[in-house]
């Protein structure tokens, strides 16, 4: 067993850290969050140059050829600084799905575009009334002489406001399939929205939009695998956000004085910090566990659920308590701790939520005897 990062992995972590240290401070983050699309094109280019956008794309397809460990390492750093660039949504997830196709080389141009930062993708899977793990997939796909066309609506497409292409799940008869839809294609309209953590997204309406089929051996399984990747990556991101939120809170209690002493000297508060630290460690363990399982080639959804549940619990406590421990300044928009809490809430909502994962796990407890690490 070995939980340390290799030299290359540590270098990757440091490179991301350094890139963001140079690119943002609190002020710059706020400005960026309120500007048009909520992230910076120049930082995106630097991410491409550092190899982050094509991180998990094989080298012969234009990427860096790394795996889930590297992805998780990068995500943790992005979480630490509340990086607004949509690395996961616009690059890593779309690439992962394309790489699962029967012939990834067919998508080489797109993959190269992702890695170089020229193409932004987005996955459009969720529909109205969906709640994890339920996915209706009511969007219909019809084959015509001119090719496939899609009709239906997709909601909550993360960073779907600016995507150059969408990977859309749809039903052809009874079968689920995934399609590539060009962002500027006819019959596609998008309604942009913002998220509570100052990011962006869009709902899509497809009206007979031309689409290209992505050949996948088992589209359902591929979509589930991509979902697992998303969950594991978000868990890793949450770890970074939690660690930093706790660090900021600890620092604040160290400098803020009331009743003649630094707040951190009051045991009632020091114990709360200790409890939060324990929760962050538990979350980190489960996040690493999920990464290790994916790295070994298994994609077991139960393990992703275990990680997600712990991360949701820890994230909620860290966000909730960090605000409270700051007092009034914690509920203000200008001070950064509330932004960490908002990001952690958004990650929870994307993960599926503690309630949903608990339900999944609860429904399976009679299928085994002692709980064991798989």
């Amino acid at each position: 067993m070995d939980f340390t990062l290799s030299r290359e992995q540590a270098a990757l972590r440091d490179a991301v850290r350094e890139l963001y240290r140079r690119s943002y401070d609190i002020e710059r983050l706020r400005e960026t969050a309120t500007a048009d699309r909520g992230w910076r094109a120049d930082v995106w280019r630097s991410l491409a140059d550092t190899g982050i956008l094509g991180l998990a794309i094989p080298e012969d397809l234009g990427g860096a050829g790394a795996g889930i460990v590297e992805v998780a390492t990068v995500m943790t750093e992005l979480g630490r600084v509340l990086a607004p660039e949509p690395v996961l949504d616009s690059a890593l997830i779309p690439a992962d799905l394309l790489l699962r196709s029967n012939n990834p080389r067919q998508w080489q141009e797109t993959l190269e575009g992702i890695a170089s930062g020229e193409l932004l993708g987005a996955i459009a899977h969720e529909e109205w009334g969906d709640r994890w793990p339920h996915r209706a997939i009511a969007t219909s796909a019809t084959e015509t002489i001119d090719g496939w066309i899609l009709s239906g609506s997709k909601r909550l497409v993360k960073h779907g406001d600016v995507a150059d292409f969408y990977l859309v799940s749809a039903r052809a008869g009874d079968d689920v399939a995934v399609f590539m839809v060009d962002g500027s294609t006819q019959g596609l309209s998008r309604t942009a929205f913002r998220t509570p953590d100052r990011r962006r997204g869009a709902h899509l309406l497809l009206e007979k939009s031309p689409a290209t089929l992505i050949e996948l051996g088992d589209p359902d399984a591929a979509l589930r695998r991509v979902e697992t990747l998303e969950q594991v990556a978000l868990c890793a991101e949450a770890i970074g956000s939690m660690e930093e939120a706790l660090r900021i809170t600890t620092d604040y209690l160290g400098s803020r004085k009331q009743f003649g002493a630094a707040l951190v000297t009051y045991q009632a508060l020091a114990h709360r910090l200790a409890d939060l630290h324990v929760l962050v460690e538990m979350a980190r363990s489960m996040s690493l566990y999920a990464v290790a399982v994916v790295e070994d080639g298994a994609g077991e959804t139960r393990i992703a659920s275990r990680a997600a549940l712990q991360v949701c619990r820890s994230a909620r406590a860290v966000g909730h308590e960090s605000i409270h421990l700051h007092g009034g300044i914690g509920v203000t928009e200008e001070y950064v701790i509330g932004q960490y809490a908002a990001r952690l809430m958004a990650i929870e909502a994307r993960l599926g939520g503690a309630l949903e994962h608990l339900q999944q796990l609860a429904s399976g407890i009679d299928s085994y005897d002692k709980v064991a690490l798989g």
Partner: protein
Amino acid sequence: MRMRLSNDEALFRQEIRQFFSTQIPEDIQERSAAGETREPDDIAAVQRILNEHGYAVPSWPTAWGGRDWSPVQEHVFLDEMHLAHVPEPLTFNVDMIGPVLCEFGTDEQKARFLPGTANLDIWWCQGFSEPDAGSDLASLRTSAVRDGAEFVVNGQKTWTTLAQHADWMFALVRTNPDAPKRQKGISFLLIDMRSPGITVRPITLLDGSVEVNEVFLSDVRVPVANLVGEQDHGWTYAKFLLGNERTRVARVGVSKNRLAQAKRLAGETPAGRGTLLDDPILRARIAEMENELAALEVTLFRATSGDVDQAAIASILKLRGSELQEQTTELIADIAGPTALAVDGPSDEIPRWAQRSIRSYLTQRKVGIYGGSSEVQRMIIAKTLTGR
């Protein structure tokens, strides 16, 4: 022993319920239920209707519009108000400065301020907290120096709720920096917000609302006639005021409304083959909260009938009440689930309650912070146990 309301009290409840259902404009109630109360208009409109019917300041002395209600009646009134989604009258007027002036003000101050305070012709804000004086309020530094018939005030207040609408501020200021005990050198001043030297800077909260402000005071001249009570004795009046503040914040009715709303929304939220309300885990969580709320309400009843230790009760109600207010908003964010992710989008696609749910939850963390934070309440409760 009896927990039922007496016949008279039950009649009183009827009368109040009738009043709220017939006299308050429905659009105000609807906005309040949706968390979209318009400030200051809705609050002013409601308070004036209440005042017209003699309901704005029931707890004041009868000479100034009070009703001489029993604690049970006061509770019933507040409860019905919450359950009917009627925005509360301005707490700074009704629960804070009004009672202080009734108790400690001069005749001239009473005549000058109380009628307008009851009718919200004067909008008050509370200038207590400062950047370095939060939980430790007695460390406040804003200074007031006597200069003839005036005080000259310099310093900064913060977290001043709705100061942007305020005509007047009641403030704690330091008049004697050399007092042997910090609490002894503080005075209670009434400051006209239009005075030269006052600047108000809004602070945006996590839900985007502008509710609190920083208030900067630079050489603000305040007539000595605006001093409440005796110079350097302001802490006594402040303690009197804060005691009144804490008993109001249990807000059982507000949490009840929110739990009922949560059940309704969960029943409308698709999940798998049914709705979210079919989920036993969610049901258990709601049942638990309802039970805690019931325990709080009975405790509130006991408090109104004097059955509990008076030293600790206000803190118990504040602590538990704010925890439940936080938990119920948290529940609504959990019910919204993925739909909480889209804000500022069209509401025909994702309802506004869901769009707002995460930011509302985060901002609602304020109730455990203001009015004496949960830690401050625990310290008070502990002190009643240990005597230390």
